[in-house]
């Protein structure tokens, strides 16, 4: 079985290196095909491992080699394939394989086709290192690896020029890439602190050792570690107040948005909390866990509210990703780790599908993303309409699609824990989710064909791309039916606590489900009434304060620009001009000047006349004799 672990892990790396060989050459289709095949290999190996874990009930732990061993510090390159990581592996490799095949079609006309596959496969490798590592150091390596790949891929079209924030809120791909990278650096600093705290107090970074030592630690240390690790998770999973980078990351190519900024990388934060669940379920850190749940609920609502008025197709979906990540954190914070993981997997399927569908629309509309300029696309894009419809129904939480089961379980958890305020907010958010997803579907695919005014001639995506998307569509429909089996499988792991609803909740579950359903259907009906028959703009509503507030993302990007970026820029300028130029640079320059001047003055000694040199030598000899004599006398 060990060899399957290595195949699953290293096939994407081989794919990345292979594609990198052709990085500078013009488009070669076989690069994409071979990359996809290698990713499919990785998926098959993951599936075999999953079957093995299901059958035997225990994980596989391999140690490839020692990485760092210095004194007491021993960090091996070890990988663990247990119930949690194998779930992640299957989800990651499945979505990646589909996205790789999709990219062959989507990046068809791009001159950096080969480079794209190199980055994309490198991302998958980093993500697998992240989920499979058996220690925090390996997790951190993967964590930074996905960050770098995300940066490379958001800024894939780095040559595009900057625009003003009024025209394009993301300014430019390179700006968005830098924003994502810098925000993640801030969060990663906290995460490193958390890892150091755990190491100092437990003497190891191996998960099993650290978790076994947790009950002997002080409350303050546990709280600090829990908070610091969660801040790291907040950065990667774009939770408030570090959320702005995710919507701007939509500047990257759409397959990237589907794979990295919806299905896999952004869920790494949730994965971290699930992985570290022995820490977060300690009674000493219950406040931190509750904060996670509360923040998750807040972000779910907050992001959904901004999606209500957004006009950019991809940004709407990005907000919905944020919102769903909030749901996952709500579940994880309340202790329902398996439900969080379940929603993570289900969400990965339908959100990737939604994004890939958006990519088809974007391809058809020649990179136009404003849904106000679309409409009536269902006539030309039957397949994409079907896929996006399925994905949106799943996202809205209509049974029997996947989203209903996973999201309903989270809402039920909030009720079961007695946190009625969180529960109410999650229910309302479910309604908003349904509204904005169907607003986007109706505006894109139904009503009058507004694109004709802009002289755009949309066309359907290639056949093979649509076929490649079908596994995601299938899973978005059926994944929910495996809820029970999934619960039994994941919670059979000793590291994964079970979570069952109380008797009371169980009785009310059907009514709670119906209530959520009413909200969801209500959202869809409202969206149909407002947008089903074409776009009718309401001047009064659009000029209202709340609409403007939402449209400007609560003025948070503006706030960051005015109160963080600008003062920081000014401070940097002052530091540059006064400290760097006048102190640091001046010191270095003056040392160099001293040597230059000294050399210039003393070079006259170099007369070329041997006699002079001998005289100097004699002077030196006499001086040294004098020094020797004087020191001898003193001593």
């Amino acid at each position, binding site marked *: 079985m060990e060899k399957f672990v290595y195949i699953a892990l290293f096939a994407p790396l081989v794919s990345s290196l292979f594609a990198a060989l052709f990085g500078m050459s013009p488009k070669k289709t076989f690069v994409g095909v071979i990359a996809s095949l290698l990713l499919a290999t990785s998926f098959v190996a993951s599936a075999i491992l999953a079957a093995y874990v299901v059958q035997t009930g225990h994980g596989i732990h391999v140690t490839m080699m020692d990485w760092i061993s210095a004194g007491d510090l021993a960090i091996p390159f070890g990988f663990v394939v247990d119930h949690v990581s194998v779930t992640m592996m299957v989800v990651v490799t499945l979505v990646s394989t589909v996205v790789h095949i999709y990219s062959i079609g989507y990046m068809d006309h791009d001159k950096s086709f080969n480079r794209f596959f190199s980055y994309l496969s490198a991302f998958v490798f980093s993500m697998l290192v992240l989920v499979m590592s058996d220690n925090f150091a390996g997790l951190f390596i993967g964590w930074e690896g996905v960050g770098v790949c995300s940066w490379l891929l958001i800024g894939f079209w780095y040559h595009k020029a900057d625009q003003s924030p009024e025209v394009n809120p993301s300014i430019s791909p390179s700006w968005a890439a830098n924003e994502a990278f810098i925000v993640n650096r801030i969060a990663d600093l906290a995460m490193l602190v958390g890892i150091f705290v755990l190491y100092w107090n437990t003497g190891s970074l191996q998960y099993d050792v650290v978790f076994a030592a947790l009950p002997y630690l002080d409350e303050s240390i546990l709280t600090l570690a829990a908070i610091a690790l969660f801040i790291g998770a907040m950065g990667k999973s774009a939770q408030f107040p570090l959320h702005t980078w995710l919507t701007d990351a939509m500047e990257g190519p759409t397959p990237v948005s589907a794979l990295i900024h919806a299905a896999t990388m952004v869920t790494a934060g949730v994965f971290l909390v699930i992985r570290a669940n022995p820490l977060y379920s300690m009674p000493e850190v219950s406040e931190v866990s509750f904060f996670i749940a509360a923040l998750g609920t807040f972000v779910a609502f907050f992001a959904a509210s901004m999606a209500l008025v957004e006009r950019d197709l991809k940004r709407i979906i990005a907000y919905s990703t944020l919102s769903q990540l909030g749901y996952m954190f709500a579940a994880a914070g309340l202790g329902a780790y398996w439900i969080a993981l379940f929603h993570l997997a289900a969400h990965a399927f339908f959100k990737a599908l939604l994004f890939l569908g958006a990519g088809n629309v974007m391809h058809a509309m020649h990179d136009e993303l404003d849904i106000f300029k679309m409409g009536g696309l269902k006539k030309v894009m039957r397949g994409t309409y079907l896929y996006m419809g399925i994905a949106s129904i799943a996202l809205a939480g209509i049974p029997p699609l996947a989203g209903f089961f996973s999201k309903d379980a989270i809402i039920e958890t909030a009720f079961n824990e007695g946190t009625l305020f969180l529960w109410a907010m999650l229910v309302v958010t479910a309604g908003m989710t349904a509204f904005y997803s169907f607003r986007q579907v109706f505006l894109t695919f139904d009503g009058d064909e507004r694109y004709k005014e802009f002289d755009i001639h949309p066309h359907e995506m290639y056949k093979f791309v649509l076929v490649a998307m079908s596994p995601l569509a299938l899973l978005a429909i059926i994944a929910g039916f495996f809820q029970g089996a999934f619960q039994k499988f994941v919670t059979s792991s000793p590291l994964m606590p079970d979570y069952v609803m109380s008797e009371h909740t169980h009785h009310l579950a059907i009514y709670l489900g119906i209530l959520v359903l009413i909200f969801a259907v209500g959202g869809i009906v409202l969206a149909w009434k407002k947008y089903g028959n074409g776009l009718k703009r309401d001047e009064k509503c659009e000029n209202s304060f709340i609409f403007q507030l939402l449209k400007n993302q609560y003025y948070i990007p503006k706030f960051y620009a005015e109160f963080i970026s600008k003062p920081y820029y000014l401070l940097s300028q002052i530091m540059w001009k006064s400290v760097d130029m006048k102190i640091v640079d001046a010191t270095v320059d003056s040392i160099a000047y001293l040597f230059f001047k000294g050399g210039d003055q003393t070079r006259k000694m*170099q007369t070329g006349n041997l006699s002079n040199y001998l005289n100097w030598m004699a002077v030196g000899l006499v001086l040294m004799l004098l020094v020797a004599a004087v020191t001898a006398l003193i001593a």
Partner: protein
Amino acid sequence: MIGLSHYLILSGLLFAIGLVGVIRRRNLLMLFFATEIMLNAANIAFAAASYYYNDLTGQMFAFFIIAVAASEVAVGLGLLIVLYKKFGTLDLDDLASMKG
């Protein structure tokens, strides 16, 4: 009675003469003679000290220096001949070609 100090004074005088020769002379051949004087001044000091301490090491060193000086002269005179053939002079003031 001639003691160690006499030899050392002689050695010092010879060394000073050699040093002044090295500093003052302009002709390369003369410089060679001056260095030879300095080397032999050291030899005298070695031999005297060796006799005084009843230790053969100093005399061994003196022989060693004589051998080194001989080979040095062999190479050095060869070089001097080449230099003279090339420049037609051995005057150091005319040989300055590496002015900084």
